[in-house]
């Protein structure tokens, strides 16, 4: 187990390095620099700026410098916003994205799994049909539409939620619903179908024949097995929700991390692009690792040795 985790963390670092290298080379192959703007700068000033940020060094040297700083936990300084470091941006934006994201994840798991199980247990009943209908609607309606309608109906007409910004628990309602909608519907459907699959298995029949209570059959024998596909989906989902959705942040005017990323790419803010990409990728890969470890706990047949 420990060996496996160490091995995976090592391959995670290699993957991150490759992603970083790719991003770095793509980024620098694009024409233009952070200091390209409509108002062209005098060549001397541009030269000075290039020197200050080390952009006049050969590419490989810039790359190594960046990596060196990265290892020491320094993500660099923004080339567009004077004196703002990427560490500042992340420590400012991430709490907002992560708070809303974690509430959304809790909502998804706390509602999606039980509703999916109930719907599977009562297959083809009225409850099942209603749940499946709502879940299909949830998958079919894009999050930006949900977000805008939340904003319009609850914000503008009813005035229940603030029109934007991040202030108090009310400002959670809109973004959380918009963010959770799709995944909640997806988890419910996934849970239902995998539960139906498991309930058909022989060991469930055996458990029932042995006289175990319904609760024990479902909770102990069925649920654990049915959770595997859900866990597979939930890992990457958590990563993308925690780091924030650009669209939701845009609609609700939230000061999250997504904003910085979109800005940085259009501004050609090299350090910010690099760092936020790596940050995203790290969270993503880490959550995939967590999923793999979670497998071993849910299903003892899965061994993490190789």
């Amino acid at each position, binding site marked *: 187990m420990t060996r496996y985790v160490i091995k995976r963390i090592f391959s995670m670092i290699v993957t991150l390095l490759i992603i970083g290298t790719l991003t770095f080379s793509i980024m620098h192959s694009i024409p233009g620099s952070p200091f390209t703007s409509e108002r062209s700068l005098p060549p001397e000033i541009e030269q000075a700026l290039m020197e200050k940020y080390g952009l006049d060094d050969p590419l490989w040297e810039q790359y190594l410098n960046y990596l060196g700083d990265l290892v020491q936990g320094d993500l660099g300084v923004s080339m567009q916003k004077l004196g703002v470091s990427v560490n500042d941006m992340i420590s400012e934006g991430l709490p907002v994205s992560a708070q809303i994201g974690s509430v959304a994840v809790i909502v998804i798991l706390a509602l999606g799994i039980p509703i999916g199980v109930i719907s599977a247990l009562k297959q083809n009943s009225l409850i099942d049909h209603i749940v499946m209908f709502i879940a299909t609607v949830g998958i*079919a309606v894009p999050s930006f539409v949900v977000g805008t309608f939340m904003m319009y109906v609850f914000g503008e007409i009813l005035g229940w939620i603030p029109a934007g910004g991040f202030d108090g628990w009310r400002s959670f309602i809109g973004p959380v619903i918009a963010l959770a909608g799709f995944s909640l519907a997806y988890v419910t459907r996934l849970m239902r179908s995998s539960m139906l699959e498991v309930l058909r298995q022989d060991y469930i029949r055996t458990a029932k024949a042995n006289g175990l209570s319904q609760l024990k059959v479902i909770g102990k024998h069925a649920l654990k097995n049915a959770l595997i596909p859900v866990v597979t989906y939930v890992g990457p989902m958590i990563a993308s929700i925690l780091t924030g959705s650009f669209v939701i942040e845009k609609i609700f005017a939230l000061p999250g991390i997504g904003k910085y990323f979109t800005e940085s790419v259009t501004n050609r803010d090299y350090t910010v692009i690099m760092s936020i990409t790596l940050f995203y990728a790290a969270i993503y890969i880490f959550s995939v690792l967590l999923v793999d470890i979670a497998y071993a706990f849910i299903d003892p047949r899965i061994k993490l040795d190789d």
Partner: protein
Amino acid sequence: MNQWTPISSEETQGNQPTRKSLTYWQDVWRRLRQNVMAMTGLVMILIISGLAIFGPMFSPYSYSEQNLQLANIAPQIEITKITDKDYVFVHNEYRLVSVTADGKFIGAPEVVDENKINRYITYNIDGKEVKFDYSLAMSNRKKGQKVTEEEENADMKTKYDIFVDGEKIDKYDTKIVLNKTNIMGTDTLGRDVWTRVLYGARISLTVGLVASVVNLCVGVVYGGIAGYEGGKVDNIMMRIVDIISSVPLLLIVILLMVIIEPGLKTIIITIGMVYWVGMARLVRGQVLSLKEQEFVLAARALGVTKSKIIIKHLIPNAIGPIVVSMMMSIPSAIFTEAFLSFIGLGVSAPEASWGTLANDALGGIRSYPYQLIIPSIAIALTMFAFNFLGDGLRDALDPRLRK
């Protein structure tokens, strides 16, 4: 002595199949047909595709045709009667547009006099002098005073008066009719929303089609090779997949957008680069378990080449999950396109996609919610259709459910 006697012909007939034997696909089709939801989805997809292909040909407008006189007019309009046969529509930019009694726009009437300081416009409609006085909007307020929320939300009717030949007419004598000129209304530049939604369908469906083709061509082959080869090759190939899936989609799009010009092409290339990843994982998983089976060993023993084993023996056996996953990749590609267009990285104006239509409508959502609702419904309906069909196919292709 011969102890064997031939059995009667009745008994031999009992062994013959009672039902016509069906091929796999005939059986799938038979089961799919019984699924009402899936068939609804299929019919909806056919209708949407038909509208996307042929709809714009029959539309009297083009997607980029602007008519500023008729900007921001809803599918349902309230028209005011000024004489027995003349009706006008009061535009909420404080001007009049002539309209027929059943809701067809004639156009802007001839302006005789326009006074922006005293806030009235005089029109000549059928020889009658019609004075549209909107000074009430300002009169109750002292100079420089801000617009209060109450005033903002007040009915527009309290803010104007209409005089015909100097006589004030009853401004509440209105009726609500359907907009016959632009059945789904117009956007901020007076472009026909329905035509633009039809054009958007073209773009969305193209994107979906590309995603499914890429899935099939790249994903299936890639996953097949990785799964069949196993070992080091598999390891390296799957690490590449991991890397691709952990680079944010947005980054790829924006980077591409700078190299190529923004537009449909960029979105298609991005989706082409990214969308086969899920399929590759799925096919690899299927192939990993299939390749241990005897028929593959038999094929290998007979000297069938690797590529033939993958294409002819392994992939057909995994066709069920492949078709379902392909079906499901279409709505998610359409989704992605709408998402990218929504954040302003998609097709550029005047081209329309459902995402850009929704994005353009965001600013005016309070006054013109229909501009957002119509493309949203289009997206949702298409998603429904593909999801229903995908679910139905999943059930129909599952041999365990075969009766």
